[in-house]
């Protein structure tokens, strides 16, 4: 399986693990779900690879694949927003920073959203908001669990306050699931920060995280600069965030599929009566 798009990749054939320094053959790494076999460093992976890894084979039906951003602010910094979008598309091979669709995980039908950090840092603009809201609305209509795998630097500056509002827009939709007794599982991968963490990322009935994933509201650099103090060991890493009470489990990539399958099965929505059967 083609697990593999990675920032850290310095060569055609091999990669040095940034954690333990081990030299790893790319094929070997891909076969190991892009986890370092020596130190368990979890390399970043793309949304398509993630979906292949999580869902029952052949069960994924993508939704809204063509939804594309506008340029509501006419935003230009060193280049225009439309040019940034084009570059992100070329780089990632995706239309936007989230892929959504319907699938099965361990036999349970779910609605799925998976973010791709390579698309402008997994930033959340109007399209991410709209696609995730539609996924949540499908979950509500079908009474299927919702699973969102986040990887994001936060809201997309180029859409200004419209991007900020996507936090409320998506949360309004996931909150409806809660009231209807439909489970929402949030999976935080490296990195999940800013507006994504400060909205739907933190609000799963269950919040899972990959080992050592960076998880924080402000980037550690921002925090460090703002405060000028030394940060505690493991600051903003998944294990740290779990020990501080915000993550239910840190789940190694190899176990993530089975773990989600168990949870969406155990929390399967019922019609209000007490669940006393499998």
């Amino acid at each position, binding site marked *: 399986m083609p697990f593999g798009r990675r920032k850290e990749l310095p060569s055609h054939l091999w990669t040095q693990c940034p954690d333990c320094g081990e030299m790893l053959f790319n094929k070997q790494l891909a076969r190991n779900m892009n986890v370092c076999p020596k130190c368990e460093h979890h390399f970043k992976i793309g949304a398509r690879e993630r979906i292949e890894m999580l869902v029952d084979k052949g069960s994924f039906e993508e939704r809204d694949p063509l939804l594309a951003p506008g340029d509501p602010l006419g935003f230009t910094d060193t280049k225009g927003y439309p040019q940034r979008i084009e570059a992100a598309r070329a780089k990632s091979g995706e239309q936007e920073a989230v892929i959504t669709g319907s699938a099965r995980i361990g036999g349970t039908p779910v609605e799925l959203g998976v973010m791709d950090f390579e698309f402008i840092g997994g930033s959340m603009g109007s399209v991410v908001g709209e696609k995730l809201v539609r996924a949540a609305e499908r979950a509500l209509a079908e009474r299927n669990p919702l699973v969102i795998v986040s990887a994001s630097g936060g809201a997309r*500056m180029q859409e200004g*306050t419209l991007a900020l509002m996507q936090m409320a827009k998506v949360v309004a939709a996931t909150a409806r699931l809660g009231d209807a007794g439909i489970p929402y599982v949030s999976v935080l991968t490296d990195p999940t920060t800013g507006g994504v963490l400060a909205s739907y990322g933190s609000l799963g009935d269950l919040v899972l995280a990959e080992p050592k994933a960076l998880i924080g509201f402000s980037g550690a650099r921002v925090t460090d600069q703002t405060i000028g*103090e030394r940060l505690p060991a493991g600051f903003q890493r998944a294990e740290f965030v779990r020990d501080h009470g915000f993550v239910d489990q840190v789940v190694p990539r190899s176990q993530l599929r089975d773990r989600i399958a168990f949870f969406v099965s155990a929390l399967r929505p019922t019609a209000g009566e007490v669940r006393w059967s499998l």
Partner: protein
Amino acid sequence: MRDPIGTIRSGATALGLRRAAEDNGDLPADGLLIVDVSGISGRVSAWDAVKLARDLKRPHALDLIERVFDRFQELHGDRSFRDDPAVVGGIAHLDGHPVVVVGQQKGGSTEENIQRNFGMPHPEGYRKAIRLYRLAERFHLPLVTLIDTPGAYPGPEAEERGQAEAIAKSIETLTRLRTPVVAVVLGEGGSGGALALGVADVVLALENAIYSVISPEGCAAILWRSGTEAERAAKALKLAGPDLLALGIVDGLVPEPRGGAQNDHDATARSVKAAVVAQLDRLSPVPVTELLAGRYERFRRIGVFVEPETAPAAPRRTWWKRVLGR
């Protein structure tokens, strides 16, 4: 708000964007509020709005609470860790009606700003807000929120105690809160830390308030790699009142006294009071289920995107190109 590509690409002044404001429903057009962006004359520059919004002498939450409400009784604490002085709230009378009011509190002096942490809440500030939202809901009292923060505090203790979770939960609570909610951006609406108080049936802003996904300085540092480009970033971010109205982020602007709210706290308070009372008069008889449906729709439709009927698939790279990251 779905539009053909051409309309969208024409930017902020496009028809599609102006329509958003017009869509925002039946705000009373009795002169209390500015609801039509085309009616704004002599607007200040984005950077001047930033400076006005941050003016130390601008009326802050307690200045307005004192003038807009009667018999305000401040309530303290999040019931779990601390009373955060950067968030104030309590029960008060508004035009003879009991309400719950919650706001972010900046200081009017350096000393007070240190005590108030410059209006940057810690997680416990948002958890205090949530507690007060729930109090309003339980007793069917309307909720008024007052937004004025550079942003949530980014320090390590705030991270440890779950700044992101607190903001997220505050947003979530408001999306389903079973009582009318009116939010007013008083000065700075700084990112998620502001939005945590900003999910409401009606969102108003003072004329010179700003509301932004990131501070102009932060944006400039990231995109222009230069803190001195903040003025340019402010303009690009479309964070000032008229832009927010055009984008459908706010439903109306509360007029400020000549030169800005800092020149006349009493007059500013009168405008805010008139605007909020008018909105609550309108919202209070609405059945809660309709209220929640309307609140959902209000935020549901925010966003600008293109949805082609048919379009060419994106070029897919072969798997080995993707493995090799090229």
